[in-house]
């Protein structure tokens, strides 16, 4: 199932669904790498059961409110709870999978 971009993310709030939010700083190298990396990780391991929002804090600074973000890029797993966060370019797939508590697909 392809992610429907026109659906609000809230419709993904089901037990096995992942709502991920990646905070980046414009086109800085680690930010661009992080987007590319998380997209591949999600497609390979969460296909059809994730919603990914990428927030450029340069252009949307208000969207960081209450998230306690210190360094960028930061990936936050909003759902399923509890909330988890990983900072960096997400190039270490193993670390990302562990950090997000995702079982790697065989």
């Amino acid at each position: 199932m392809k992610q429907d971009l026109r659906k609000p993310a809230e419709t993904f709030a089901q037990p096995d669904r992942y709502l991920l939010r990646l905070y980046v700083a414009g086109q800085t190298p680690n930010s661009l790498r992080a987007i590319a990396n998380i997209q591949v990780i999600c497609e390979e391991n969460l296909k059809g059961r994730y919603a990914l929002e990428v927030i450029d804090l340069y252009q949307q600074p208000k969207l960081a409110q209450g998230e306690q973000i210190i360094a960028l890029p930061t990936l936050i797993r909003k759902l399923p709870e509890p909330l988890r966060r990983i900072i960096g370019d997400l190039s270490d797939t193993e670390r990302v999978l562990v950090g997000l508590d995702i079982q790697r697909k065989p």
Partner: protein
Amino acid sequence: MTLKPPISGQELLAINTDLRARLDRAEETLRAIGAGEADALVVAGLEGERLLTFQGSEAYRTLIEEMSEGALTVTAKGLILYANRHFAVMLKMPLEKVIGSKIWDWIALTSQAQWQALLTASAVGNRRQQLTLMASDGSAVPVHLSVTTLKLPSLPDAFGLVAIDLTEQQRTDALAAQLRQTEMLRGGLEDCIKAIADTVEMRDPYTAGHQRRVGQLAVAIAQAMQLPRETSRGIELAAGIHDLGKISIPVEILVKPGKLSAIEHMLIQTHAQAGFEILKDIQFPWPIARMVHQHHERLDGSGYPQGLKGEQILLESRVLAVADTVEAISSHRPYRAALGLEAALAEIARGRNKRYDATVVDACLQLFAQKRFVFAA
């Protein structure tokens, strides 16, 4: 000294969990910074939080963020790594749902092949293409897309895209085309009117040129009265065919020398009504048929065919009436020699505010007094 109440085991557990979470977060932050995986820090500022970037140029970033075209960075597979706000506005979608999505999702089905061709061609130089995006509400957004291959060490296979929204331009083009067509139709319409005028005058050589000269004077009066340009144009065209109805009158009467009998005079008078009947079903941008119908009406109700009075008569027809009278009296007629311009002007001066509109008469008299108008030969 007061003793703090003892903390329960449950509360200790909660504090422990919270501290552990904070420690985890701090360790993760330090690890990422130490490993060079972070690009910016979020720091407190006077006007709220702001980003402290480790590298990069603020000026270029601001330029791309604020430009009024859509700007984006995509991978060869179409993943959008960066998009500016304007691009999200084009797609009517929140920016956070655009970055991280696939460019394919936003390109109209009819343009997918063009997009693929553009990516292929961008390697050999052809980097521009007009194609259609599909906004989140399903509406089509025509854009001019230009592609540049980015050679960044961190992104070996990325493209920089600039998208210019053509919606407004296409709307303007369509309006311009419509305007050109309207101008063409109008030109055709005016040519038809001239052809009709020529036909009438060919049949009646004695009044040849009469309608044209009435047109010249009527326009001069309209301009002196500072009537809108469009109104003047309508008056000129109506003047050019105001005697069209004479086509229904036998030529022998039109060209008869000497005084007309009462019956013949009545017959001549039918030309205003006849002209109206011919023109009334033709759609003009001006009330041409009514102007023709009323050009023999007089302010005091003594005119024909309807005996209209004052404001009942179109302003355009009141202008025509004065121009027609002046031209007719001052030039030769089959039944009499020319009476001259003085006699003509004396007639309208006498009829000022009685048979003829005072403002029109004043404008006309002033034109001749100041020598700002002469009939062309």
